[in-house]
């Protein structure tokens, strides 16, 4: 085993931090290390928390950390914030709310930016989860801003997916319905100290109940809880719901191997293969200039895009095309 993998498994903070950096930066050499770590994963319980900007996700995570640590369980946190589309930079500010845990050896907090490279976020977050899992964290909490599909996909790979809303988010709740309502295992109405939480509760209830069929026959029915993260009100009850959901998963789906359920593995592997193909094939074609030459040919009307695609992809995969390869002379 490589020394990096050994250090990660031994819980070496520095090694873990640097490996996550390499994952985030898309360094190809991390693959070998992740292979070595994989047998040591599958033990952590992964909680995904998503919701609109400013609904109180980080404040909630901070309180969760406090309670979970009282039980002497260890926690890894991945806090994902959006990359600025203008500069490619990001301000990662979730840590501010979790400051009081920074000297606690049982807590590892890492901020990540969405970056926006193709398929990158889901892939790199999953790998980072594996690293924290391999280092022995009992719980892993992933916080994302629930805006893009990527961010939603990230929390979907958790055992328990939590969706946070605040009172008076009428239209936003409609927006949730379109995308992530189905993925929520627990709904939280945070800032319940504010006006309108009853209305939000009944709106949400209505929407979840519209999907009633899904919850028949003993299936998990997502609870909706009112919390006040900043005052630590309702957070204990929330953690109890997570525990109930965990029990439910254990009873119904081969326990914590839930993340390795067949359809999940299928989805994740499909995605991984896609990303890898793009990385290997497209990147190479871009580097050699073949891609740009094909674009030129299409622009100049010398070649149709279908043939261009054949010309680019088939040789790269070592497949010979059935018919004559059209327009190959221009490439």
């Amino acid at each position, binding site marked *: 085993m490589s020394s990096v993998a050994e250090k990660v498994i031994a819980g070496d*903070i*520095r090694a873990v*931090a*640097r490996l*996550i*950096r390499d994952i*985030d*930066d*898309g*360094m*190809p050499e991390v693959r070998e290390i992740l292979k070595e770590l994989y047998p040591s994963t599958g033990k952590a319980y992964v909680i995904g928390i998503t919701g609109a900007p400013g609904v109180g996700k980080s404040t909630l995570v901070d309180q969760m950390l406090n309670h979970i640590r009282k039980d002497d369980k260890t926690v890894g946190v991945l806090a994902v914030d959006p*990359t*600025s589309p*203008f*500069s*490619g*930079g*990001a*301000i*990662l*500010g979730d*840590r*501010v709310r979790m*400051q009081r845990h*920074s*000297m606690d050896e049982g807590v*590892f*907090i*890492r*901020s990540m*930016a969405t*970056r926006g*490279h*193709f398929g*990158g976020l889901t892939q*790199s977050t999953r790998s980072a989860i594996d690293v924290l899992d391999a280092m022995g964290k009992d719980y892993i909490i992933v916080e994302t801003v629930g805006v893009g599909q990527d961010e939603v996909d990230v929390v979907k790979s958790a055992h328990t997916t939590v969706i946070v809303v605040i009172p008076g988010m009428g239209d936003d709740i409609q927006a949730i319905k379109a995308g992530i309502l189905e993925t929520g295992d627990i709904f939280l109405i945070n800032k319940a100290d504010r006006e309108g939480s009853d209305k939000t509760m009944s709106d949400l209830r209505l929407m979840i109940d519209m999907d009633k069929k899904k919850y028949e026959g003993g299936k998990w029915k997502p609870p909706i809880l009112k919390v006040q993260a900043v005052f630590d009100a309702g957070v204990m009850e929330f953690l109890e719901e997570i525990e109930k959901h965990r029990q439910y998963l254990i009873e119904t789906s081969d326990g914590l191997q839930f993340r390795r359920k067949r359809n999940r593995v299928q989805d994740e592997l499909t995605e991984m293969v896609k990303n890898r193909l*793009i*990385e290997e094939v*497209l*990147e190479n074609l871009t580097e050699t200039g073949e891609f740009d030459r094909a674009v030129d040919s299409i622009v100049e009307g010398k070649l149709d895009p279908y043939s261009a695609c054949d010309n680019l992809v088939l040789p790269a995969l070592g497949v010979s095309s059935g018919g004559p390869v059209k327009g190959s002379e221009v490439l």
Partner: protein
Amino acid sequence: MGNKRHIRVMVAKPGLDGHDRGARIIARAYRDAGFEVVYSGLHQTPEEIVEAAIQEDVDMIGLSSLAGAHNYLFPRTVELLREKGVDDIVVCGGGIIPDEDILALKEVGIKEIFTPGTTLDEVVKWVEENVKPR
């Protein structure tokens, strides 16, 4: 297609004074320059800052201080990094810091000190030239 190193910087505000306007402004300037900025908040001890910087695997720590405690807080941060065997995180400071202190701070390993006269562009340029993303 993510194999590209990004500069990661932590902006920290040690000490007791309660203003982080300066820190927030510099954080935004770094973001606009394309850096990933971990903002860690007010009232941090050097111990907390160093621990966070290691977990976040940043290339640089930018310390901001108005309260005049920089003569203890800045060197302590450098010292803690050394104790932990971390030799590749650049430490810089900013704030209202007298010239005679600047020399002493640089001597103990603070790479650069930015005073209120330094423009944001100058700060960003300095980072781009002196901090390599791993």
